[in-house]
């Protein structure tokens, strides 16, 4: 099957070009000397320097990180709890309805989520700012966490919890000492997912942000309307770098853990 054909090569090239050409262009132009984005005038890193002196961008970045960190943490706690209950509670009347309702926000148009949250915040008289963005992001990223964690819990051997109870744990201790450490990888990936979702959300944030707080995506979006500046290219390149490093590290760590486990198992079978 490992044959090189012109068809394979072409489809591979086209596919990757489709996916990555825009990003590559963006990265290249972030090193452009010229202020005109579409005219190449030599290599330079000056826009990165400019970026670091732009307070508005730095403030927005700080808000975004805060929002992403807090909302993904709350979403992880709530999402894990929801997943645990849905998987463990067994059959009860309305179970399908409940689990459907947990997953519905996944397919809900963001505009509607954003609008309804805006109406709620206005209705209860909550001033829009960092706090409301955190609430909004928690709401929509919670269901992603819940999906990731419940898929792990479904394959979780129930007798591990029973063994913990049998050995003297209270149900709370059993969860903390046995269940949580075992499902930790799923909880962490749920958190990472929520974090990234919050990091790049534009729609919901623009509904729920107020004059006191602006997130980075909103900031980028509004400055684009005044024309694309090379500074934004630099900023985007940095974000791509951060995400890429994160993803690559995570996959290397997972891969090596899996390899080590396999090697251990083989050694154990031989012994």
């Amino acid at each position: 099957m490992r044959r090189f054909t012109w068809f394979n090569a072409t489809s591979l090239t086209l596919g990757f070009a489709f996916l990555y050409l825009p990003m590559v262009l963006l990265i290249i132009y972030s090193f452009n000397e010229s202020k005109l984005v579409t005219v190449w005038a030599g290599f330079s890193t000056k826009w990165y320097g400019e970026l670091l002196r732009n307070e508005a961008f730095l403030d927005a970045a700080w808000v975004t990180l805060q929002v992403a960190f807090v909302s993904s943490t709350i979403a992880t706690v709530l999402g894990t709890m929801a997943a645990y209950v849905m998987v463990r509670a067994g059959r009860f009347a309305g179970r399908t309805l409940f689990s459907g309702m947990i997953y519905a926000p996944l397919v809900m148009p963001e505009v509607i989520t954003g609008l309804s949250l805006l109406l709620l915040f206005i209705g209860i008289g909550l001033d829009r700012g960092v706090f409301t963005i955190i609430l909004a992001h928690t709401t929509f990223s919670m269901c992603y966490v819940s999906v990731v964690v419940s898929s792990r819990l479904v394959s979780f051997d129930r007798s591990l919890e029973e063994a913990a109870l049998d050995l003297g744990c209270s149900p709370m201790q059993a969860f903390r000492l046995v269940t949580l450490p075992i499902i930790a990888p799923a909880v962490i990936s749920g958190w990472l997912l929520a974090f990234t979702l919050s990091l790049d959300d534009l729609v919901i944030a623009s509904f729920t942000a107020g004059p006191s707080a602006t997130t980075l995506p909103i900031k980028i979006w509004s400055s684009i309307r005044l024309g694309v500046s090379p500074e934004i290219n630099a900023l985007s390149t940095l974000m791509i770098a951060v995400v890429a490093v994160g993803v690559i590290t995570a996959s290397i760590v997972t891969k090596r853990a899996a390899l080590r486990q396999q090697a251990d198992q083989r050694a154990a079978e031989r012994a």
Partner: protein
Amino acid sequence: MTQTVFEPWNDPNEKPLIQFRGVTKRFGDFTAIDNQTFDIFEREFFALLGPSGCGKTTMMRMLAGFETPTEGTILLAGQDIAPIPPNKRAVNMMFQSYALFPHLSVWDNIAFGLKRDGMARDAIGDRVAEMLKLTRLEKFARRKPHQISGGQRQRVALARSLAKAPKLLLLDEPLGALDAKLRQDTQFELMDIQEKTGTTFVIVTHDQEEAMTVASRVAVMDHGQIIQADTPARIYETPNSVYVADFIGDVTIIEGTATRDGAGYRIDFAEGQPALYAETDIALTDGQRAYLAIRPEKVSITAEKPEDKRNALRGKILDIAYLGNLSTYHVELPKGQIVRAQTANTRRLSRRSFTWEDEVWLSWTDTAAVLLER
């Protein structure tokens, strides 16, 4: 020298450790355990044996505290255990899947229960070392469960459930995941450990050989009821029903009508066939349907009609199952019934006296067959 036989169930002064009093467990419409009353005594190795779905695991889970009886009470050392949650019971369980905590080392797995009891650090260290020694796992203390073999995992699970010195240890199909050879070794190891620790063991298994090997008493279950609970020898030699006779070991069942004759009954089972005879303690009315259960190893197979035996049938060899040490002959009677006879292969195969299609005589003594009502 008099040897004291371990038979607390025959001693009226002995207080049972566990008492089931009219215990029923229902899951919706399904009755898993049907009004059971029985006792298990201290230091017993009690086996619950039966096909899957007979309720043996439910019985065990009620003892562990993962299920509560729908009706009736379970007493542990005289105390009703229904209101006590699993984590407060002096009962530990060894799970079928072993349920070792994958994120903890062997040492930490064994120490897990002791830490929950708030035991002092030194005492935990001593106790874990003792358990590792008992199960010969000293070398593997620092390994994680996925770094040891199946047999070793099984011993870690045992060590972990024994570490808290429970009054009662429950074993759920403990050897199910091991291969045949390792199973046998482990069975003897289990018995040895049970004797050393003096703990009461209750084992659930569907493997009759395993139950017979390890247990002091075996309870044969079917459809949520214990059909017979007795020593392995008595279960085998004097089953109380066709179900038990058939479930344990190999047996030929002959159905016929009973007529009183001396110390036993004459059984007419087919027209044109000589009547069979069995001595028994049970009382039947003349003409009642009855079943004769005959173990194959109690049937002798000869070329000539034996003069001294009342039970003698003529038949033709249909099949021979050669098992190495033993051969089982399937002999067909003129009316089509199959009777099994077993002989030890003390001679080389080439000198075997019978072969397929041979006409032979089957015979057994007056006390060899067990007469059953149902």
